[in-house]
């Protein structure tokens, strides 16, 4: 089989048309990106491609001949495998057990596992992929990129010719992403067909041979190598040119927050850092750089080593409640685990930090709560069936908007966010950036940690760059470039903190 795809495929769920006559084809030896906003139909298409769903019209194709895949197992038997976005690994099993031992037919001898054969097979496979990991290590000891490698290796152990990767780099640092992309390029050279679903367009521009774009469940373009540019892709995905948020102006005067003599960890040099009214301050650095420390400390999740002044007065944040009382709202990176009550409604999630405003004598004033929720649903463009829908049913971008609405509703003066747009599609991303800018415009202060350079450059007034626990530099917006940030955060250049 040299070509795998779908021809005029249609899928409806009740009244909703998820895919409307979509066609798509991936050749062996190419990296074919599948792009689109959340809700554009990418997930549905993946499910159809691996036989998890069956089409209502149209057909899957192998070398242009119609084919039916009855189940994911069926797809695997036909050499089509998927690597899911979440980590589908077993942390307490070894690398060899993850890659080979959990296959449908692992090597056995006399009823027992042929452990040596299993390890040898796993090692041979990893060697072929130029992955240097000890196959006897438990997978929990691996870093995020290595776990992704294990999943990819497992798909290859299933003899997959075509590999579908759903957001393989969504939760990876830039450096780790590079390693995964390098592996994909290697697989392409081995004549595998790679279907890459991602929100990170710079990766597509760098690696993809072609990109199929979906919008509202329809084909919205096929971009070839010659036109593979960020602006072309963004316009095709949105169906219009993107609008950039205008940077509000930061005020001077007493800073809203002032960190004095703060360290990111024991032994690291102390530094000072301020956040003014109307200012958006970006923090960045690779894993272990300490950049995330300040945001976590503001949320009461880590003790702060040093002094924090809020409006000129010292404040000790011991718990999340201390932070909320001081008007600091935090949004953790793990918004599902640490930010949202997934089963609770959108309205309740928005009201969580401002219950005093929507309750009287301990009873919730549901009408007031709903009015506030509706207000933010409209102003932030939160897409949900109703404000009473569980927040878990919303897309990642809309969940993030709910968290932002929570702190806007509570009247917080400072919002501290970790990775504001991780796993969020570009439409919602622009919306979130606009909201943060609007919040700052209205006099609020934002401090955020991000590893995404474009995001830092798009919304931050100043960018504080950390490396090895040390604050290396603070770049004003007009002096910051991707190259400079990368150089400083990877330790190539050091600059004195401004």
């Amino acid at each position: 089989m040299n070509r795998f795809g779908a021809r005029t495929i249609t899928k409806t769920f009740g009244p909703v048309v998820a895919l409307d006559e979509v066609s798509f084809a991936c050749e062996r030896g190419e990296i074919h990106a599948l792009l689109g906003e959340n809700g554009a139909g990418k997930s549905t298409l993946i499910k159809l491609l691996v036989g998890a769903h069956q089409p209502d019209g149209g057909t899957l194709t192998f070398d242009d001949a119609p084919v039916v895949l009855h189940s994911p197992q069926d797809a695997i038997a036909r050499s089509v495998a998927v690597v899911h976005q979440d980590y589908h690994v077993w942390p307490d099993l070894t690398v060899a057990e993850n890659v080979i031992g959990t296959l449908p037919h692992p090597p056995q001898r006399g009823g027992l596992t042929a452990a040596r054969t299993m390890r040898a097979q796993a090692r041979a496979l990893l060697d072929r992929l130029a992955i240097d990991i000890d196959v006897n290590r438990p997978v929990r000891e691996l870093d995020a990129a290595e776990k992704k490698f294990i999943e990819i290796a497992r798909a290859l152990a299933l003899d997959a010719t075509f590999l579908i990767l759903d957001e393989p780099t969504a939760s990876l640092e830039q450096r780790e992403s590079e390693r995964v992309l390098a592996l994909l390029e290697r697989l392409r050279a081995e004549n595998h067909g790679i279907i890459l679903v991602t929100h990170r367009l710079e990766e597509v521009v760098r690696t993809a041979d072609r990109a199929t774009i979906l919008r509202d469940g329809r084909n919205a373009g096929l971009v070839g190598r010659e036109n593979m540019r960020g602006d072309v892709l963004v316009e095709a995905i949105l169906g219009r040119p993107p609008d950039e948020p205008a940077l509000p102006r930061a005020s001077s005067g007493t800073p809203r927050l002032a960190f004095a003599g703060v360290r990111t960890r024991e032994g690291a040099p102390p530094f000072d850092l301020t956040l003014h009214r109307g200012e958006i301050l970006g923090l960045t650095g690779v894993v272990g750089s300490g950049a995330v420390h300040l945001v976590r400390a503001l949320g009461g999740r880590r003790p702060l080593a040093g002094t924090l002044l809020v409006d000129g007065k010292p404040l000790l944040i011991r718990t999340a409640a201390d932070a909320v009382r001081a008007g600091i709202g935090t949004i953790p990176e793990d918004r599902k685990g640490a930010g949202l009550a997934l089963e609770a409604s959108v309205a309740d999630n928005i009201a969580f930090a401002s219950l005093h405003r929507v309750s009287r004598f301990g009873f919730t004033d549901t009408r007031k709560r709903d009015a506030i929720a509706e207000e933010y649903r409209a102003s932030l463009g939160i897409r949900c069936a109703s404000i009473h829908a569980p927040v878990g049913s919303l897309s990642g971008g809309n969940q993030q908007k709910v968290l932002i609405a929570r702190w806007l509703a509570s009247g917080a003066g400072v919002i501290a966010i970790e990775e504001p747009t991780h796993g969020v599609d570009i439409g919602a991303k622009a919306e979130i950036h606009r909201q943060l800018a609007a919040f700052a415009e209205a006099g609020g202060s934002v401090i955020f940690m991000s590893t995404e350079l474009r995001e830092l450059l798009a919304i931050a007034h100043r960018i504080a760059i950390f490396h090895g626990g040390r604050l290396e530099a603070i770049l004003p917006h007009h002096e910051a470039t991707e190259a400079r940030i990368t150089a400083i955060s990877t330790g190539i250049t050091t600059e004195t903190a401004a």
Partner: protein
Amino acid sequence: MTSDAEPAPVRINATKRSRSEWIDLAFVPVILLVLIVALTLLSPFFLSARNVTEILLQAAILGIVSVGTTFVIVGGDLDLSIGANIAVSGVVAALVMTSTNNNVPLGIAAGLGCGALIGVINGLITTLLRVPAFVATLGTLVIGQGVALTITSGSSIGNLPDAFGALANANVLGLPALVWWMFLTFGAGYLLLHRTVFGIRTFAVGGNREAARLAGLKIDAIRVLNFVICGFTGGLGGVLLAARVQAAQPTSGEIYTLYATAAVILGGTSLYGGRGSILRTLLGVALIALLQNGLELLGVAYSNQQVAVGIVFIIAASSELIRRR
């Protein structure tokens, strides 16, 4: 550039891991060691051959059913019905023997089959009816206790044949056969859980059920099989308990309901599934047996022994929290 940027995070993770892992690995062995030293100092009788045999006998039934319970827990489920299983299986074995003119092999087979059947029932309730194992086995626990009382009319069935008694009490290489059955069960359990494909799959299902499903593993079949293994050890435990005293009591298994799960968790197997080992369970069983024996030697009342076991159980469970941090 890389040489400067990479090592820092790696080092941080490494120290954090080694410390918590150290706590995890050393926790039970250290307690065991302290317990042994303390009891040796406190009671000259403790290390005598007779008392060691006594400890092994006390540990035997608990050890056997804990092996089965380990499979279920590693697979991400629980089996609280094990106590009732022991009672029902013992009673069924005894009833079959007494009503077939002391046909010992048939009685044993009936007891083991009964245990495995309870496992099948637990497995089907949790997989087909999608009832969480905790609730399902709590239900079969209560049902089993009722059944044991009903079929015996509440009284024990005594005077079982000597040939049956020999199953547990025969002297083999200086130790009662019951103790050897325990070691045999541990050995078989070790091979099955740690040296077979089925074992890997059990870890896979317990560690990440959704991933196991998407990897094409037949997770329901694997879960049912683990319940059957657990049920079978319950049957074995019930038969051997009846053989030991040559009588079957409808209320005999009660304490094992929680002690089996406690022994597994004490050993350090994760209550959430996917991580653990038969060896750890052996340590957990040893800890409970030593604790009970020691408290007995020191003349502590049985009721207070239970309090002590409960406290140690909670401390051990909190050590998992330390580890997971």
